[in-house]
């Protein structure tokens, strides 16, 4: 209810216009005014924005809290790395790693989507632990690099991977927007509201959930590929450490889950927290994330977007009701 009113007031066109300006600035930035340090900061911001956005396809639309979303990211990292090291070029590796991630997600969905609510959340977290064990194991060291991590040939990929991350963020965001508009997206939302009723009304909930998980995994996996291409080396410790594991969900929830713009706002906000606070108290980075969780959970499960919506809606609806009525007649 409130979201419709607010959206009507701000105007979708102005949001699109603003987004286009931001994308153009980010696109010409590295060629003109952004320093290499700034480039890496924005690269991580974009990568984690698209990761959080992809999280929200399952977490925001279906309401299934996926604490193990980083698993798909990691499968993207490792399959891309393995393909690169097998001698395929970057282009081919980028493309061929996608079906690997999709198949992994499809396989995961068979047992894990039988769980709901808390159980799904914890089981997905457990999967991350298992994946960590698998990539570290001595049996697979020749492919995964074991403890010391996966490494690809060092080249200067920073600029192209920056543009890939930018493109990925735009594509993921547009896809989430289109999914929300579609019949498929409405089906997913109906699962979030009440899965049993959705099923009674003819939504193929099992298929929808599986598709949502696979789509979400593909975007996350691609983010992983771009991540490795930029860094050229990453370790299980970095990937499966709790601060990275919970980053997509932290960002999505900080910004506001279930809204297209939320993960983007969350990502920008998290980058500020990361640079300003976590970099200062690096020994307490997990604790800082924990405190963010506590505060968001207690005060604002809708994140920044949720807070803003209630604030704006309250001001406009209660104080100046006439504004709401123009253009968008209220439904009773």
């Amino acid at each position, binding site marked *: 209810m409130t979201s419709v009113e607010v959206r009507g007031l701000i105007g979708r066109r102005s949001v699109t216009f603003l987004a286009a300006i931001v994308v153009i600035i980010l696109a010409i930035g590295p060629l003109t005014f952004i320093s290499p340090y700034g480039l890496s900061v924005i690269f991580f911001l974009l990568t984690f924005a698209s990761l959080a956005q992809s999280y929200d396809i399952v977490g925001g639309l279906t309401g299934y809290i996926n604490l193990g979303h980083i698993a798909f990211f990691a499968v993207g990292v490792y399959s891309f790395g393995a393909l690169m090291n097998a001698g395929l070029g970057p282009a081919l590796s980028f493309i061929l790693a996608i079906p690997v991630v999709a198949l992994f997600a499809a396989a995961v969905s068979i047992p894990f989507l039988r769980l709901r609510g808390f159980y799904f959340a914890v089981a997905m977290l457990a999967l991350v632990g298992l994946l960590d064990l698998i990539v570290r194991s001595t049996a697979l060291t020749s492919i995964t690099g074991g403890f010391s991590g996966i490494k690809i040939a060092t080249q200067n990929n920073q600029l192209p991977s920056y543009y890939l991350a930018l493109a990925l963020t735009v594509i993921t965001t547009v896809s989430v927007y289109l999914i929300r508009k579609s019949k498929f997206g409405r089906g997913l939302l109906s699962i979030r509201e009440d899965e049993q009723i959705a099923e009674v009304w003819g939504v193929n909930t099992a298929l929808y959930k599986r598709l949502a998980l696979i789509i979400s995994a593909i975007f996350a996996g691609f983010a992983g590929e771009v991540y490795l291409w930029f860094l050229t080396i990453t370790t299980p410790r970095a990937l499966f450490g709790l601060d990275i594991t919970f980053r997509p969900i932290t960002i999505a929830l900080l910004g506001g889950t279930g809204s297209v713009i939320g993960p983007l706002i969350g990502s920008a906000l998290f980058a500020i927290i990361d640079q300003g606070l976590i970099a200062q108290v690096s020994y307490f980075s997990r604790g800082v994330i924990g405190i963010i969780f*506590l505060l968001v959970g207690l005060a604002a499960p809708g994140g920044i977007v949720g807070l803003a919506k209630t604030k704006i809606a309250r001001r406009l609806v209660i104080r100046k009701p006439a504004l709401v009525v123009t253009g968008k007649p209220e439904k009773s």
Partner: protein
Amino acid sequence: MVAASPLAELVLNSLLLGGIYALTSLGFFIVFRVVGILNLAYGDFVMVGGLFAYLILTSDAIPFAIRPVFVILLIPLFAAVGLAFERILIRPLLSKPPADALLSSVLVTLGFSLVLQDSWANLFGTLSKSVTSESLGLPIITFAGLTVAFSRLLALIFIVIASIFLFVFVKKSYIGKAMRAISQDKEAATFLGVNLPRTSMLTFGLGTSLAAVGGILLVIIQSVAPFSGLPLTVKALAVIVLGGTGSIVGPLIGGIALGSAEILSAFYIDPYWSPGIAVIILVIVLLLRPTGLLSR
């Protein structure tokens, strides 16, 4: 470990680890059934209980003979912590609509877990801590060709007593009956005069004191480390899925099964994989039971 009689040794170890898993899973499970919240910080409560037991048992400031008393006092202390945790952090979430309450409770309990982990890592270091039988001043005894630390036998006895106490408490006491009534039908129970908020709070207290028991046993049998809280929470979930949620006996059986699977796989395959056993069991159970043992 002396391999005089590996089979007996394996059985004893399985029972010990399984017993700890059973007790901690029970604490995790009753809170879920009564309060409706999966406490993701539960494993961290276990770990912190173990850390405190370690600090007491290795402290020079406390006279040797009084140390066990202080360790036992941890159990009511943790119960009080659980009551406060429920009152301050969990109670405000319960009045929200279900979808929000789910998200908020995951955030709040996970956030608390991360804060606990990082505080510990900063205050006491990231190394795992354990208490040996010698430092407890207890002998290592030989019994029918089996060499075993006396502390482990004490732990086993303690596990059995705690399980029996818990079983009787849930079956016979008023609070236990109220807990079971709420887990069967919340509305009907409140109609019949069960005080829901009070029972929820007491259940949280009981669950958290079981975490302290688990932690104390774990630091004697194995070791505790700042970052093994979340894996322990995952194991508690696997135990519940494995044992079923029908009764209080389910988690007991599930706990022993998981403990045995870990000990046996560590002995016959490779200890490296034992942290992953819980997940593998979870996947297998979910694949074999197409409807899911738990569909909610």
